[in-house]
């Protein structure tokens, strides 16, 4: 005889602090932003309470915004793909090394987080700038007379992003590689695979969840950034986040800033939904825990 299980409220007691925090610190502000996007910006920093779609109409009709969305998407894809390639190799190395102090390698990976990411980003000025280390060496070696211009362009922004976000990729890929049974590659080898075939048949497909989780993180983090383009980019290397920054901080147009913020949140939300539809979010928790 089936008996209806009584509602057990205890888990909800335990969850309530977290739920309250999310409600007040995430849901409520997002609601404010949405409401703000319907206001009218009358003058610098002066808003009029209203319910109209003028800001949204600007967003949907002005190609300047569309262009920024496209540039942001393009930048995020470039950085994600590069980070995937550049991150997989060290992750594979750390996962497979016989080095006894593996934690030391992982610590090295986390070490950069101890320094502010703005300072780390600015360090590239001293590396790639006209008076920077690379140009200094090139001129000293006599390979060039004039410093080569490497800063304040899209390339510098990509370098800055990769530098800051690579550890997220490496950690995610590393976690999934660590979870793969060590005997699978030897098993594939004995069945007739060359080392490369064994990697392609076994290790690569089994590490895809980690690669996908790392890619999602890097994509979302890149698409939401605005500081790196300010420090390392030229006037044309702005991303969508810079438009939000300009609208809110420079133009003091909070209703438009709110509209743009909500748009970015919505677009990245779609990316996450698509991701979780195909990969599930479990892998992400695994790497973050």
């Amino acid at each position, binding site marked *: 005889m089936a008996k209806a299980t009584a509602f057990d409220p205890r888990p909800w007691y335990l969850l309530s602090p977290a739920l309250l925090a999310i409600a007040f610190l995430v849901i409520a502000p997002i609601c404010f932003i949405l409401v703000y996007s319907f206001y009218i910006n009358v003058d610098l920093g002066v808003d009029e309470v209203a319910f109209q779609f003028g800001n949204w109409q600007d967003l949907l009709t002005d190609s300047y915004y569309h262009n920024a969305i496209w540039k942001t998407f393009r930048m995020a894809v470039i950085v994600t793909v590069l980070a995937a390639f550049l991150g997989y190799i060290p992750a594979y190395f750390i996962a497979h090394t016989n080095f006894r102090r593996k934690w030391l390698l992982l610590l090295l990976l986390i070490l950069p987080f101890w320094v502010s990411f703005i300072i780390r980003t600015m360090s590239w000025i001293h590396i790639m700038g006209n008076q920077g280390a690379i140009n200094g060496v090139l001129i000293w070696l006599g390979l060039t007379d004039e410093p080569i211009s490497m800063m304040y362009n899209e390339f510098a922004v990509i370098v800055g992003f990769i530098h800051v976000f690579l550890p997220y990729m490496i950690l995610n890929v590393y976690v999934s590689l660590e979870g793969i*049974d060590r*005997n*699978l590659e*030897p*098993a*594939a*080898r*004995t*069945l*007739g*695979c*060359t080392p490369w*075939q064994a990697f392609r*048949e*076994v290790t690569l*497909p*089994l590490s895809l969840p980690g690669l996908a989780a790392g890619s999602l993180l890097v994509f979302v983090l890149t698409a939401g950034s605005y500081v790196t383009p300010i420090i390392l980019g030229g006037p044309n290397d702005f991303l969508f986040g810079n438009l939000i920054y300009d609208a809110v901080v420079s133009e003091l147009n909070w209703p438009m800033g709110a509209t743009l913020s909500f748009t970015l949140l919505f677009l990245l939300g779609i990316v996450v939904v698509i991701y979780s539809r195909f990969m599930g979010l479990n892998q992400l928790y695994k790497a973050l825990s």
Partner: protein
Amino acid sequence: MAQVELRGVTKSFGAFLAVKTVDIDFQEGSFTTLLGPSGCGKTTILRMIAGLEKPTGGDILIGGRRVNDVPVHKRNLGIVFQNYALFPHKTIGENIAFGLKYRGVSRADAAKKVSDALDIVRLPGVEDRYPTQLSGGQQQRIALARAIVIEPDVLLLDEPLSALDANLREELRVELKTIQHRIGVTSVFVTHDQSEALAMSDRIVVMSAGRVQQQGEPEEVYNAPATEFVASFLGAANLIEATVASADGADVVVDTRHFGRFAVPKKAANGLGPGARGKVVARAEKLKLYPAASAPEGGVSAPGTVEATDYQGQIVRYFVRVGDIQLQSVGMIDGSPFQEGTEIAVGIRPDECVVLPAEEPSE
């Protein structure tokens, strides 16, 4: 099918010598077990035969051909790992067909071979399932099917039963042996479990600390251990210190502190001469316990006390104190077992004992 030969094979990992100049012949079609405690080098030997480790010295020959420099994928071997090592992202059918794909077998032929292999391991019709949908024992059968479907020259089994629970382990070990017999593939089985080794092998190679201690048929290794290590690793053995008193005639007479003087057959004395120090090996199941003062006339016995009993259902294991040594006795229960503290007489049968030379303390 092929014969596998190891000729003076050595393997070191940095300063650690894992395998020390080992010579072993694995006869064509035989089932040979490498038996030893963990860290004795048995798995390293298996991995060297497979090509997953390179020997530091010596030669490995498969079917008469030196394979030291032949990469893994060209050796045509099947391996079954302890933890199954099935590809979790592939179906059972794809797992088994994996090796066939790399041997250029057509899709239709492969499907036929896969279904035949599944029949052999008695799991027909599971091609479309994934490994995690099967139990441990079933997964290990699939791993076996995957290894034998490529018709390997040598089948390597790396503790394939260790991850299974006791009942399944015994069931599968009979089956594994039956399948091996049927297809007649040269098999190398690695285990630390002496009962698996005794039950399954045509030949046992007992290893310790990177060296071969003894190789031979199961009965030979069990009944006539060549070293103290072999004696104590296979089953429970009692080692009783002895000195050879005389060695003429058909028997060798030894003096022991606890059991006095008795004679053992000359062939069991390993060529020890008068005055040599050695150890008498008496298997626990050959040690008989009698109520005190009722030991049979003319037998070799010593008075003792039951210190502990380990009751196991149809058999019982006693730990018996005789003077300053403790001996083990295992026997079928006949009537009620002796209680702890009981005064008894411990009898040994000299004609079932072996005398080993005393060993120098190991390096």
